[in-house]
């Protein structure tokens, strides 16, 4: 399937198959979640980690939901995986389509460029948080990592830059570590 077809799939799913919630409610809920984590952990690195973990647990479930909604098959290569993440994944759940850019030469790393992250609305980070490197939307990284792991791809996903840190766009780097083998039953004879 080409990138264009994925776009149609994502748009169709967004239009017909998604129950929407109020965006502001969602954004504020997420914001208060992060604030609570900051209060609890008192350390921005730990908050990043926790957000990633929460995202991971979301991702491992969300992938089944995406597949059930869209009926997509397994991707043939990592390039189409990138297209699906941006044009179907982000589209269906957040109604944004980050652009896929900066492919590494071996085709195992790419960046998702988000210029309109809805979670950033109404959000301003205190200087301390920027300085200590809080990735406010780090939950995305976990979601992508979790979802890809269920598709047998072990990945590293991390924020490179963020609008909230003063960059002009947000960038998430996705790196394919390895493709996991299917599990086989333990031989118990």
């Amino acid at each position, binding site marked *: 399937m080409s990138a264009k077809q994925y776009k149609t799939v994502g748009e169709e799913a967004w239009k017909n198959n998604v129950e929407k919630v109020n965006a502001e409610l969602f954004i504020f809920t997420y914001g208060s979640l992060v604030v609570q984590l900051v209060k609890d952990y008192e350390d921005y690195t730990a908050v990043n980690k926790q957000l990633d973990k929460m995202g991971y647990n979301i991702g*491992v*479930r969300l992938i089944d*939901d995406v*597949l059930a*909604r869209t009926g997509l098959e397994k991707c043939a290569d990592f390039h189409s995986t990138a297209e699906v993440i941006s044009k179907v994944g982000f589209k269906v759940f957040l109604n944004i389509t980050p652009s896929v850019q900066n492919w590494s030469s071996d085709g195992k790393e790419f960046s998702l460029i988000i210029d309109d992250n809805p979670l950033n609305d109404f959000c301003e980070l205190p200087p301390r948080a920027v300085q200590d490197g809080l990735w406010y939307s780090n939950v995305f990284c976990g979601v992508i990592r979790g979802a890809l792991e*269920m598709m047998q791809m072990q990945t590293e996903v991390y924020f490179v830059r963020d609008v909230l840190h003063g960059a002009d766009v947000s960038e998430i780097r996705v790196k394919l570590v390895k493709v996991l*083998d*299917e599990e*086989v*039953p333990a031989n118990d004879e």
Partner: protein
Amino acid sequence: MVLVYNLYIFDRHCQCIYYTEWNRPVSPLTADIASVRTRAKEVARVNQGRSSDDNGAASASDSRRPLVWPTAPVSSSNAKDKSIASVQNVAMEEEAKLVYGVVLSTRNIINKFNGKDGPQGGNPGGFMSFATNTYRLHYYEAPTGVKFILNTDTATTSMQPVLEMIYRNIYVEYVVKNPLFHIDPHVSVPIENDYFRAVLNNYIREISASSTTTA
């Protein structure tokens, strides 16, 4: 008329996380339950007048609801019940392993014939069903590696839409989206959601009753 015998669901760790049966003539679960019932009746006859017979109520509800496995461990204090349950468990475990082995090997050989085999598995060869002279086994594998295996009578040729429907609208809806179902991606957890059971059961009953045979 579709006659559905039983359904297995295997997760990505090769574990049977759900099994249920409807019209299965011989089963490791019913075989022992039948003997339990006859034994229970004998006991009841002996003890008549001394204890109220609550076995009757239990077996009545059994016959209405299809059997499922794995179930929560029996809380009965009766040692005999417990040992029977564990015998059933072992028998079911053996069966589930065999079924998984057969299906996986069949899928792999089909993938191989298509030149699409690889360590990542999946079902690129398009294994859908096989039949013997007494039943037909239908196979569906979700892209995340969850496998659904449904046995029906031989006349039913295509259950792919049904299995897909079970995955998309029942499994995802009531298992994956259930916050109480603890998905740890590295551990197998049996499905013990009553709502899932009920919806699945209704759906199967619905397609069993529909007179249009999918040809």
